[in-house]
């Protein structure tokens, strides 16, 4: 080896301006490696762009919904037969009492606009409107009983078929065998759109609303399951952060290094790799079957996710405690601080950015977790209303954002497909926000000196 090098160098003919064979080979290897690296990054970026494009192009439609402006005459005869505006009496009129008014109003509107149609009966046009329209009007009337007798213009949700037609999901060909809508309805939609009464606009109901039944995709929203996720995250934060940080500080700073702590350490690392569905079945057995906590409750979901998040928080906290230079501990002990004072006055503040980042990453992971929720009953058509208060927020059946998305994705109506993608956009926005918070907190707590 050294002989070969010597003979090469000993020739004395090599010039610095021309690379010898070895150098050329090394340079080529480096060039190849750089290319592989760039290619890997390029591939990663490409897939990211494809993913984001797919999500946005599929999901952005969920934020827009088709509405029909209908001037409804709120007939006192139908809505408040006793005429005393007593809320209790008015509640007795169900949505069936409102439906004819709305259908007549829509029929009248079509007639007034001079749109030619073959439909002779007001009831024939109900396919244009969402089944939720009557409930919408009823809620408004119960809140504003004084307006009975007036003609009020409502922005009513169009049915999901009409919405799909405006979003090119439904076409005249695709509805041939559809019992919910006819070609004549689509003619009406075109005419109403030209007239300006029917239009697409931003749909706050998708972000703030509750889930709806299978047949009312246009009404379904993510709001209630967002709240379910929020309550779960509260449980996770309140339990996992103190338990995780206390366990890490003890293990890292105080515990003797022996066989038992070694076993604990290995097991914590293993727990981080346990499939989340295992935590789900553990939660089912421990919290629901044994402790008799309510099914589908965010409290139970939060407890399960706490179990799942703890290893993540402990590992990252221990790593950041370990990263604090030992000289700081020596300095504190050297001036006569006790071990606890050294830890809490000096080590913990320095480890804070890492701990917070780890916690938020753990929370983000928990926020996106679906599998354990399957087993404790948080996936399905669960909540149609906002919880009444804090307690029912924790205890009443609810879903969570990823579980809701999963639920939508598996429903038959293609209108739900768009909503599943839209839900993913919202979920990603939340994860992005949490990661930004992690970065900001890290910056804020990081001591550059």
């Amino acid at each position, binding site marked *: 080896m050294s002989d070969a090098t010597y003979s090469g160098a000993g020739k004395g003919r090599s010039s610095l301006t021309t690379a010898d064979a070895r150098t050329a080979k090394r340079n080529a290897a480096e060039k190849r490696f750089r290319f592989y690296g760039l290619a890997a990054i390029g591939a990663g970026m490409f897939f990211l762009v494809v993913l984001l494009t797919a999500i946005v192009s599929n999901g952005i439609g969920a934020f827009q919904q088709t509405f029909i402006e209908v001037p409804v005459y709120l007939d006192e005869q139908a809505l408040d037969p006793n005429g005393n505006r007593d809320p209790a009496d008015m509640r007795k009129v169900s949505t069936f009492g409102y439906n004819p008014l709305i259908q007549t109003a829509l029929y009248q509107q079509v007639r007034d606009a001079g749109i030619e149609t073959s439909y002779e009966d007001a009831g024939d046009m109900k396919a244009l409107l969402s089944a939720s329209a009557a409930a919408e009007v009823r809620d408004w009337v119960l809140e504003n009983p004084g307006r009975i007798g007036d003609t009020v213009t409502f922005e009513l949700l169009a049915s999901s078929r009409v919405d799909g037609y405006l979003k090119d999901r439904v076409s005249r060909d695709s509805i041939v065998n559809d019992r919910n809508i006819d070609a004549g309805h689509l003619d009406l939609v075109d005419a109403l759109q030209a007239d300006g009464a029917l239009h697409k606009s931003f749909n706050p109901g998708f972000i703030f609303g509750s889930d709806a039944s299978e047949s009312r995709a246009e009404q379904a929203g993510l709001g209630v399951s967002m709240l379910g996720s929020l309550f779960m995250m509260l449980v996770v934060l309140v339990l996992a952060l103190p338990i995780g940080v206390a366990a890490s500080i003890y293990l890292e700073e105080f515990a*003797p*290094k022996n066989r038992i702590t070694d076993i604990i350490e290995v097991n914590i690392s293993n727990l981080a790799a346990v499939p989340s569905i295992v935590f789900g079945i553990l939660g089912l057995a421990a919290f629901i079957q044994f402790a008799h906590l309510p099914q589908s409750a965010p409290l139970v979901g939060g407890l399960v996710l706490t179990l799942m998040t703890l290893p993540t928080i402990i590992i990252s906290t221990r790593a950041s405690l370990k990263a604090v*230079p030992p*000289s*700081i*501990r*020596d*300095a*504190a*002990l*050297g*001036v*006569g*601080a*006790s071990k606890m*004072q050294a830890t809490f*006055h*000096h080590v913990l503040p*320095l480890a804070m950015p890492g701990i917070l980042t780890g916690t938020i990453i753990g929370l983000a992971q928990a926020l996106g977790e679906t599998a354990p929720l399957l087993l404790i009953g948080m996936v399905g058509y669960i909540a149609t209303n906002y919880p009444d208060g804090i307690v029912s927020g924790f205890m009443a059946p609810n879903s969570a954002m990823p579980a809701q998305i999963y639920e939508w994705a598996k429903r038959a109506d293609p209108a739900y497909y768009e909503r599943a993608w839209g839900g993913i956009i919202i979920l990603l926005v939340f994860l992005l926000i949490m990661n930004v918070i992690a970065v900001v907190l890290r910056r804020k707590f990081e*001591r550059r*000196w």
Partner: protein
Amino acid sequence: MDATNIKRDDPMYDAPLRKTELDVQQNKIAARDVQVYYGDTHAIKDVSVDILDKTVTAFIGPSGCGKSTFLRTLNRMNDTIDICRVEGQISIDGDDIYDKRVDPVQLRAKVGMVFQKPNPFPKSIYDNVAYGPRIHGLARNKAELDEIVEKALRRGAIWNEVKDRLHAPGTGLSGGQQQRLCIARAVATEPEVLLMDEPCSALDPIATAQVEELIDELRQDYSVVIVTHSMQQAARVSQKTAFFHLGNLVEYGETSQIFTNPVDPRTESYITGRIG
């Protein structure tokens, strides 16, 4: 450098008779048959040494000879190392510091320590110095604490450089200033013994000179024990020198004598540069 020429006017040097007297009266730390083990490694073997009050004692020796380890047994900093075990007796003012009843926290308030690398807390200069007095409750109010901080910083010979920026971060100072800040931090708790583990090894010659001057001043009030790699430094600042080799205390005596007329051949080899 000729060690005998240093500090001729020092009372420590003038009369051999006073030496025995000092040994009896000013014996601050007495170590007897100290053994230190790191797991199975026998790091310190049978070390017995008497460290005098108001004296600078230097520990010299090649790397890995155990001088830092022995220094750290004097304020039980080795307690933080799980596998470290200390045997034998070390007493300060007659109290055995490895007695079960001794709280290492109290001991460390009495025996301050300065480390090899300047390690100020990532806090303000003021808070760095005030931390010790605060946790030991040495000040009743802000004014007293201010006074303690000022006194400590003056002792650390850094007051004039930092008095206008007490609330600036301590880590923003230069290396030499940081080390003097650490010395100020160590003296702020009013210790009786000050242990210094190679305090100048990370400093440039000018900062080293400042710290050495400071060590000489600290001798007025404290018993200072300094570990150093530099024999010149040991000769410059110390009155007593202990030479460690492979975990043994080879020779201990007056600095002037160790450097001019060592008894043990190993000491001679080391100071003349043949081993180490």
